[in-house]
């Protein structure tokens, strides 16, 4: 019988196989999506990406409103979730008395465990009416002249989608930011305090030390928001239009696939939906690559961790990579 330990050849083989498998899976998904959307690709070519019409009856398909909706809702979500999430992280690492830290952090992370359909239902029954009320108020002010606040106050629309996404993404941003802040050496905060920093200034020093990690946390959130389907589908209004208005019912890539896949009649319709999936897949990869580049550039910024000298105990920038 062979001993179980010491079999490093097997370890190498096994782990490389798994690593290759991951890459192969990504490639397979891409190829399958490509294959499944060949009719649509053949018919529309690149104009699919820029087409504004989505008319299954006349067989006109363009993805732009969905791409727009996905970006708009995700960015909106991040605009809310990034400060709130990082704020929660700071609160639970530096502000709250120690014995409340863990329970509070746990509660914040619990938000991530709520199924997205529950968020959707809560969105429909609680958030949307509130948003509608808010929009009604804004519609009565001169602000309605701005493109951002134009249109009738439905409640169902971009603002609701952005807010519900923000809520869903906050636990990701906060828990990763929290880990980052906890990994900042005590010596950094002490250095700041010893030079006469207030608590807020010491926190800023810690945030600066962990900035790449925090950025990674935000991108993790962005990645989550980008692919989120169910809750968004329930509150975004499902109307494929390009609108800058927060009030307008719009659509997202994930939502249109979820909504229309089962009732897609005809091969072209089906292939067009699959191509939306392909577009989502490609854009997600690109966004991730871009975020990784951004993190690198921050790491190598002026007067920062230069000359190839690794920062002692620097936060690994790994987080963003998980944001797919």
């Amino acid at each position, binding site marked *: 019988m062979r001993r179980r330990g010491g079999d490093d050849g097997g370890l190498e083989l096994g782990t490389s196989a798994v690593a290759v498998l991951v890459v192969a899976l990504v490639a397979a998904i891409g190829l399958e999506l490509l294959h499944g959307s060949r009719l649509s690709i053949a018919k529309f070519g690149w104009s699919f990406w820029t087409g504004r019409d989505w008319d299954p009856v006349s067989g006109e398909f363009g993805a732009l409103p969905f791409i727009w909706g996905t970006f708009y809702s995700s960015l909106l979500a991040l605009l809310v979730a990034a400060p709130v999430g990082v704020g929660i992280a700071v609160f639970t690492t530096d502000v709250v008395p120690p014995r409340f830290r863990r329970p509070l952090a746990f509660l914040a992370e619990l938000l991530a465990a709520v199924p997205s359909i529950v968020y959707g239902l809560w969105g429909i029954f609680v958030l949307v009416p509130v948003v509608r009320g808010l929009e009604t108020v804004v519609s009565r002010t001169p602000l309605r002249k701005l493109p951002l606040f134009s249109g009738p106050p439905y409640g169902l629309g971009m603002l609701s989608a952005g807010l519900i996404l923000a809520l869903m993404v906050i636990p990701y941003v906060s828990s990763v930011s929290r880990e980052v802040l906890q990994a900042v050496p005590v010596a950094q905060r002490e250095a700041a*305090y010893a030079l006469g920093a207030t608590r807020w200034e010491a926190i800023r020093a810690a945030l600066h030390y962990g900035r790449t990690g925090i950025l990674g946390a935000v991108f993790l959130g962005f990645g989550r928001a980008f692919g989120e389907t169910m809750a968004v589908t329930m509150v975004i209004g499902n109307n494929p239009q390009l609108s800058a208005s927060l009030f307008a019912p719009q659509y997202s890539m994930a939502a249109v696939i979820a909504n229309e896949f089962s009732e897609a009649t005809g091969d072209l319709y089906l292939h067009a939906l699959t191509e939306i999936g392909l577009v989502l897949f490609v854009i997600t990869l690109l966004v991730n690559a871009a975020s990784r580049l951004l993190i690198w550039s921050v790491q190598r910024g002026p007067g920062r961790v230069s000359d190839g000298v690794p920062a002692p105990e620097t936060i690994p920038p790994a987080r963003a990579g998980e944001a797919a």
Partner: protein
Amino acid sequence: METATMTPSPTTPTHAVSMDARSAPASAPAADAPPLIEIGGFSFWYGPKQALFDIDLRIRERAVTAFIGPSGCGKSTLLRCLNRMNDLIDGVRVEGSVRVQGQDLYGPDVDVVDVRKRLGMVFQKSNPFPKSIFENVVYGLRLQGVKNKGVLRDACEKALRGSALWDEVKDRIEESALSLSGGQMQRLCIARALAVEPEVVLMDEPCSALDPIATAKIEELIFQLKERFTIVIVTHNMQQAARVSDETGFFMLGKLIEFDKTDVIFTRPKQKMTEDYITGRFG
């Protein structure tokens, strides 16, 4: 009443400058100058555990005072009490007083932030911020709201000269502080502490992570710095204490066993325990 008049009053200021507490029990015989820091009846607890027991100590201005003793003897704890860094730990408690120029640092209306500006600190492990050398040095000044670039530049140069680092880094102060060597980083941290012009520089084993050459540079620096600053240094290294300090306190299990001029401590200690420690019988 009678006894009171008989007691030789220790408080006879030549002119009634202020009603501060400097005039308190200045009973030390032949003290050349009033001490800058007076620690009186000072005890300290981490939660239920008492770490310092009734410490009385005077620290002279523009001199180097060393705290020595075996690990866990409370020397670092005491040092960190001098700029209230221990406040950052939860559940600590103090008794007694630490007076700097008569003002009790643990008094009711003391601004902790202000205390830390007056008593700068250098840590065991150098802890530069991941910023440029320049930004590291002027960090404390920026906290104080100094924005004028010229003022900051001058202060940066002065502090770097003060920590004997200027010649090595003057051409690259915009580079990352993390590109410096270990010894340079520690001198940068000293420069950073000097830049805010503190009254006292507290050093918590500043050389323990450095090689002998870097250590020698820092010791030389300490020697120069005492012309301008009051220095309190905690060290594990007895030779270092003997080399750099004017006065030395020996601590054991949270108690100050002996405090005297450094040469006295190292040549004719009064306490058996001190002698045993410095001759290497334990510790």
